[in-house]
């Protein structure tokens, strides 16, 4: 199983960050993808190379500040679980964490790399100077 985890501390309250990353239809605003569409519990994302991933939204828990999804109907990917967590660290600071577990295991690495870019962007957007 390929498993990766990326995290970043952000000098901003957890609710503000969650209001952004907890909106599944806004993924393209921070993750390095070219398009994102949500219909009910389904999401489709398009990568720059033209690949489209169909995803099932599994968890969207505003109390826990957790979002989970899995890539489905893909002939190559036999298992996937992606998780975004926002964890408060006091009233004005939080940790944004992205993790993914998948088979084929090596695909976890470029997804982790893209997540690193995305997390850095969210930090840049929300860090209070």
């Amino acid at each position: 199983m390929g498993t990766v985890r990326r995290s970043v501390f952000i000098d901003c309250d957890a609710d503000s960050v969650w209001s952004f990353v907890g909106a599944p239809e806004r993924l393209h605003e921070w993750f390095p993808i070219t398009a994102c569409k949500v219909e009910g519990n389904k999401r489709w994302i398009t990568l720059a190379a033209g690949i489209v991933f169909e995803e099932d939204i599994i968890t969207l828990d505003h109390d826990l500040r957790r979002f989970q999804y899995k890539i489905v109907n893909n002939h190559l990917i036999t298992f996937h679980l992606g998780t975004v967590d926002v964890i408060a660290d006091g009233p004005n600071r939080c940790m944004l964490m992205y993790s993914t577990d998948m088979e084929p295991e090596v695909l976890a690495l470029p997804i982790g790399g893209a997540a690193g870019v995305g997390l850095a962007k969210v930090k840049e957007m929300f860090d209070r100077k």
Partner: protein
Amino acid sequence: MGRKILFITTDQQRYDALGCNGGTVANTPVIDSLSKSGITFDRAHPQNVVCMPSRSTMLTGQHVSTHGVWMNGVPLPQDAPSIASDLRNAGYSTALIGKAHFEPLLDPFLRFTENRLAGEKLFTDNPNDPHRGFDHMELATHGAAGNLHYSQYIRDNHPEQAANYYRVLDNELQVNAQGGGDSGAPQVHVNNIPREWYHTEWVAQRTIAWLQSLPDDQDWFCWMSFPDPHHPWDPPASEMHRVRWQDLDLPEGYIANPATREAVLDDKLRHWRGWYDGTFVSNYEAPAKWVPATLTTDQVREVNAYTHVENELIDEAIGTVMKAIDSRGWGNDVDVLYTTDHGEFQGDFGLLFKGPYHVDALMRLPLIWRPAPNAAIAPARVASPVGLVSLAATFAHIAGLPQPTYVEAPRLPQNDTEATVLGHERVLTEWDSVLFGKIVHLRTICRDNWVCTAALPGSLNTTGDGELYDLTHDPLQHVNRWDDPSARAMRDDLLSDMWANLPKTVLPLRTMDAPV
């Protein structure tokens, strides 16, 4: 006008691949001629034995601990120093044609410039401040898959040929273990692509096209980077008549007796035997589903035959480029440097491919510097240890520039006397791999014709483990003298020297964004 620079690299080529270094199978008259009129280094090591870290060292003149590309899949930072930038700022036109690999190849998000250029029909991302200092990047890798210019060329012009290449990854995106040829050797494949469309020819022809685009009085730095003889071993089938695998002897480094071979492996750090038995695969580029212990003598010979053919094609391609350079009237003004990024087992110890194994198969590289004839520098063979880390300073020296402040090694010497003056006493090599819980860390020094490797804590090895080889009396590195009391003083001296000279690793380690 200054001296122009043709920097030629191959990928995964052994020191003994060339006639000038004692090779007896592949005919390499063009490279041999460069050696005869130039400086040939007999103890040149990379600073890492896989592509991305080693190539990053060539470009930056820095050890792996400093540039931070500690493994394949770790991208070289966008703002890393580049000798190409320095040369460009000094008025040189600059190009990299062939395999770059400073950035991951598996890049579905197209995050990296190398993977975006061809799709956008570009050779530079920014003509005023080009990526890594290259005015022109026209890129290729091992085959016709992916996003690089050669793949685009095949798709646009000969789409039916793409499937002739070996499929590098399997359905699980693991490096393919499928065998081919007559012996079923992994990554061996009969490729029916016509020779003129094969990537070796394409790299040479695109190099010539770029050179032809330059004015006569323009100084230039051209990195011509052949993807071969790196696996998969799939040269054009039309050329396989050159070397019949059935006619080859087994390589000197192959240990035919399994019991002897396994005893030699057991005497080394633990990850050697783990890989041989198929229980510990720590390098993505070695097919995870292939078990080295199953390697047959026929497979060893067939892999070697395919490799020798690829090496001959490279030599002939270089000859074509050298003729084109002569036809421009530049012949006497061009420095040629020839090397590779790392070696290949090719059957040594019953192994193929590469990984965390710091022995001559992977570390001893061909390195030739043929100075511009107008510079009137005497030919020489240099026995002193040197590293690819010296290339950047050498390019600066050729161009008449001061040694860049960012490099960590002096330029290459022109003979052994100068090697002493410049301080070429030792060469250092690092390995770090962390692949889904399989961890190997090694640090190696070569000095005084000894090679000493210290393991750092990892999955199978721990502090205090290591390898020590006396290259003079044990050139095949069969006897690990790490625990030999009679060699203890040498071991301790080498370790002390290594720790005193290794740059401190920049922490935290940069993230690994792809397997390769």
